[in-house]
């Protein structure tokens, strides 16, 4: 395990998603509302290139919305380009299946430098 500098904080502004390579490992770096997340570019479903998917909000419809559809939390979910499975970036959890989860790499900002631990 070692820390790897992948850029400065200005390279990853809020709302951005970027694919970086650390020791030949492809990692998607997402800035959701000022917080950075680093996810492997491998979908836990069938190993598709997860982080090449789009970042969006999602649709909900429940008792709290009085069973009306609502588009919520824009920018917080990643859709795998292979099968369309939605993952919550902050937790790595697949919305459609609690058993399906993408792991996170530790990512931190230190004196303006963004570091991933791998």
């Amino acid at each position, binding site marked *: 395990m070692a820390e790897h500098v992948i850029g400065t904080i200005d390279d990853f502004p809020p709302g951005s998603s970027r694919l970086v390579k650390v020791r030949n490992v492809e990692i998607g770096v997402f800035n959701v509302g000022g917080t950075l997340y680093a996810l492997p570019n491998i979908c836990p479903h069938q190993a*598709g290139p997860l982080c090449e998917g789009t970042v969006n*909000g999602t649709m909900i419809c429940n008792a709290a919305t009085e069973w009306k559809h609502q588009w919520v939390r824009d920018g917080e979910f990643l859709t795998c380009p292979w099968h369309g499975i939605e993952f919550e970036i902050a937790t790595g959890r697949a919305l459609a299946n609690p058993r399906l989860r993408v792991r996170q790499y530790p990512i931190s900002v230190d004196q303006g430098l963004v570091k991933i631990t791998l």
Partner: protein
Amino acid sequence: MVFTVDCDVHVNDTPGALAPYCDLPWRHSLEDLDGANYPYLQIPGFAPNFRLDPPIRGMHPYRSVNTAREMREELTEIGVDVGILFPDHLLLFAAIPHPEYALFLSRAYNRWLLDRWLRDEPGLYGALLACPQDPEGSARDIEEFAREDRIVAIYLPTAGVNPLWGHRRYDPIFAAAEAADLPVVLHSVTIVSPVFPCQLEQFENHFARQMLGHSFAMMANLVSIMHTGVPARFPNLRIVFTEAGIAWAPYMKWRLDKYYHEYRRMVPVLERRPSEYMSERIWVSTQPIEEPDDPSHLVETIRHIGEDRVVFASDWPHHDFDHPRALLRLPMPQDLKRKIMGENALRVFTRIPAPSAVGADSEERA
């Protein structure tokens, strides 16, 4: 590496691509459809369908493959040695009402497939498009095109077909397939149409229609061919059911047998239980493979259908395709994996050479 035959991959069959291969006067129709930016599986007069849903943000992109070289590269990338090619838009072919135009269009597709997809790249084989709108004409075309050795199957367009494939009007197509020693492959797609499985418009989104469209089409056509005795009347015909997963098959097999006990006198053309015909000459392809929480349940399901009866399909490049690893990672013995991934397919699609004969190609690509 497990030798992998993919029983279902799709080529992008646009009207403009097919137009030069279509005879007049219907070539003009394809020329006039060319270039319009129609969505996937929705081209008037070519892929007729109702798309009822609004887009919802965050959906994954639409993929298509436009050349044989691209197809070869992409299949190699996902670990497929041999691919059997089917159309994209003409998955809706059976919904075209005009019999003369339909026959010309099927002929154009088959010529285009042979000329543009089956000449140069190794490991690509084709399924001829049958024309249910004109079974006699289609049978003549099958006889002619089946002489090409890269043709390994007859594709029976299943979405929107009316009547279903067991109807005796299709006997010439089955006879031609049997005479050519080529299997027939039923392939459906979700369609909103007034024919079976009908009334899908009452569902308010595609999730629901997708649930039933493919699986009902396969179940209904299996019952259709059984109740008119197709497997009995064409004793050498091999039949493959695709794109509905596999778990429907044991249910239908057991249900057919259950009621055969009771109603045998209505279907005396079947001289054995339906399951026995299924166990000998009917195959089911895997995609979209079910993903139960406990994968051993899926392996058990495969055994219910029969270890020799299940063949791998990816459905590349479509949205719900399965990577070969979806099967390879299942908890089952290596010999069963080899059967599902390739060996069973070689017994269905008998024109595909066994891997020892194509070993040079495989090594080159490995």
